[in-house]
C-alpha cells in the first residue's frame, strides 16, 4: 500500500442522526454565495453529516440536478482542500468519490457532458482507494454508460450493459442491475429493435414493482408509453399513462414527469392531434425548464418546430428553432449531426426550413 505514514484516527465525538440531517439541511438551504462564505461552519468535516448530505443529494438528483451539482461540487472542493483529521480509514477518499459521483451525475442529467466526464474520472480515482473499490467503481461505470446512451453510442451501451449488470447482481445491488437493463432496452428501442425493447421494458416494470423502486418504475413507464406510441398502440399507451401519473406525482420525480408529458405528446402526434401534442410538449418543456435541463428544453423546441411546420405555421416554427440553436451550440450537442445542423442553419438563413435536416437534428435528442 502507499501513503503508509498514517496517523491513528480516533473517532470524533458522535453526532445523532437528527443533528446530521440538520447539518445537511443547513448546508443545502444556504445560497451558493452563503455556502462559499461560511463553508467552514457546515460541519462538512464530520462524516456523519456528510453521510446525511450524500443521501439527501442522491434523493434530489431527479428533482433538482442543478442544486445537487452545485452543492456536491462545493462540498468536494472543501474536503479536498481541508486537512480535517475526523475521517476514519478510507472515509475521506470515499466521500470525495461519492461527492464527485453526485456532481457528475447532476452534470450528466443537465447535459454538461464534459463536466460530467471530469467528475466521473475524479469519482473513480477516489473510489479506487476505498475498501469497496469494485462496488463503487461499478456505480461510476453505470453513469458512464448512461452518458454513452445520451451520446447515442447505442452499440457500445448494448455491449457493456451485460457485464455491468452482472457486477451489480453479484453485489446484490438489484436496483442498479435493473437500471443497466433499462439502458440496454432503451438502446434497443433507439436502434429500431422495438419488440425486443418492449419485452425488456415489460419485464422491468414487473421487476421494478417487485423491489418497490419508484425510480425504475417512473423511467420504465415513460419508456413504455413512448414505445407503444411509436408502435401505434394508443390504447396501451394511454392506459399506462393513467397508471403512471399518480406514481410520478407522488414521487416528485420531475425528470420522469416531464418525460411522461413528452411521451404523451409523441402519442398525440402519432394520432394526428397536433394542437394537443404541442400542449403536452409545452408541459414537458416547462418542467424541464424548472429544473434547468436546457438540452431537453431545446430538443422540445425542435420537436414543436417540426409539428408547427407540419401544420403550416412556418414563422412560429422558425422561432422555435432559433430558440434551440444557441443552446445546442452552448452545450456542444449533436456533434454527430453536425451536417444536418449546418443544413438547418442554412435553411433558416434562407427562411425556408429544411424539414429533413430538422428531423435529423431532433432525432439526435429524442432518446430519453
Amino acid at each position, binding site marked *: *500500500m502507499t*501513503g*503508509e*505514514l*498514517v*496517523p*491513528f*484516527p*480516533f*473517532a470524533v465525538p*458522535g*453526532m*445523532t*442522526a437528527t443533528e*446530521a440531517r440538520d447539518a445537511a439541511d443547513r448546508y443545502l438551504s444556504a445560497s451558493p454565495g452563503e455556502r462559499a462564505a461560511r463553508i467552514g461552519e457546515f460541519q462538512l468535516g464530520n*462524516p*456523519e453529516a456528510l*453521510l*446525511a448530505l450524500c*443521501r439527501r443529494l*442522491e434523493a434530489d438528483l431527479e428533482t433538482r440536478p442543478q442544486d445537487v451539482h452545485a452543492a456536491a461540487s462545493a462540498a468536494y472542493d472543501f474536503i479536498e482542500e481541508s486537512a480535517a483529521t475526523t475521517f*476514519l*480509514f*478510507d*472515509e475521506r477518499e*470515499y466521500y470525495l468519490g*461519492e461527492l464527485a459521483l453526485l456532481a457528475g451525475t447532476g452534470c450528466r442529467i443537465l447535459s454538461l457532458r464534459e463536466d460530467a466526464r471530469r467528475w466521473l474520472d475524479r469519482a473513480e480515482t477516489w473510489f479506487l482507494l476505498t*475498501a*469497496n473499490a469494485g*462496488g*463503487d467503481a461499478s*456505480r461510476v461505470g453505470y453513469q458512464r454508460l448512461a452518458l454513452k446512451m445520451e451520446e447515442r453510442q447505442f452499440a457500445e451501451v448494448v455491449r457493456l450493459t451485460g457485464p455491468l449488470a452482472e457486477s451489480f447482481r453479484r*453485489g*446484490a*445491488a*438489484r436496483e442498479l442491475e435493473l437500471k443497466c437493463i433499462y439502458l440496454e432496452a432503451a438502446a434497443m428501442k433507439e436502434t429500431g429493435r422495438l419488440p425486443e425493447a418492449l419485452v425488456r421494458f415489460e419485464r422491468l416494470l414487473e421487476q421494478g414493482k417487485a423491489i418497490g423502486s419508484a425510480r425504475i418504475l417512473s423511467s420504465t413507464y415513460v419508456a413504455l408509453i413512448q414505445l407503444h406510441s411509436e408502435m401505434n398502440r394508443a390504447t396501451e399507451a394511454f392506459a399506462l399513462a393513467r397508471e403512471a401519473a399518480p406514481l410520478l406525482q407522488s414521487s416528485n420525480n420531475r425528470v420522469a414527469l416531464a418525460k411522461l408529458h413528452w411521451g404523451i405528446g409523441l402519442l398525440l402526434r402519432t394520432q394526428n392531434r397536433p394542437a394537443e401534442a404541442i400542449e403536452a410538449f409545452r408541459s414537458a418543456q416547462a418542467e424541464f425548464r424548472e429544473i434547468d435541463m436546457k438540452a431537453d428544453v431545446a430538443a422540445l423546441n425542435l420537436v414543436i418546430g417540426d409539428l408547427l411546420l407540419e401544420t403550416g405555421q412556418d414563422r412560429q416554427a422558425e422561432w422555435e428553432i432559433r430558440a434551440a440553436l444557441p443552446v445546442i451550440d452552448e452545450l456542444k450537442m449533436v456533434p454527430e449531426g453536425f451536417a444536418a445542423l449546418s443544413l438547418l442553419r442554412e435553411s433558416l438563413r434562407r427562411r425556408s426550413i429544411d424539414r429533413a435536416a430538422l428531423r435529423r437534428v431532433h432525432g439526435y435528442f429524442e432518446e430519453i
Partner: protein
Amino acid sequence: MTPLPESRPPDIFEVLDESLPVIDAVLVQFYGYEAAEAEAFKDTLATWFHRVVHRPAGRAASASELREQLLYVACKYARAFRVAQVRTGGILKDDVTSAVAWPVEEVAMALLHSFEPRGRRP
C-alpha cells in the same frame, strides 16, 4: 449515530461481533499492538463499520461481503499504523519486520478462512 436503514437486516451486527475477537487477536498477536492500542483500534473500526453499512454499496452488501471488507480494512490499517510507528521512532523496526512484510490481502484472507470450519491463521 445514523440508525440502520429499514431494509438492512440486523445480521451486520453479528458480522461485527464475530469479527472483533479475531481482529483483536491479529492486532495483538500478529502486529504486536498493546492491549489498550488494540481496544482503541477496534473502537475506531466499529464506528467506521457502522457508517460503511449506510454507503450505497454497503446498503446492498451481504454479511459475508461486509465481513471481508471489515477484515481487509482492519489488516490494511493495522499494518499502516505499525509502519508509521516505526518511521516516527515509536517502536523498533525489528519488532514488526516479519508482520509488516506479509501482504495485507494474505493476512485478511487467512482471517476470513478462520471463519470456516478448518481455517488457517497467519
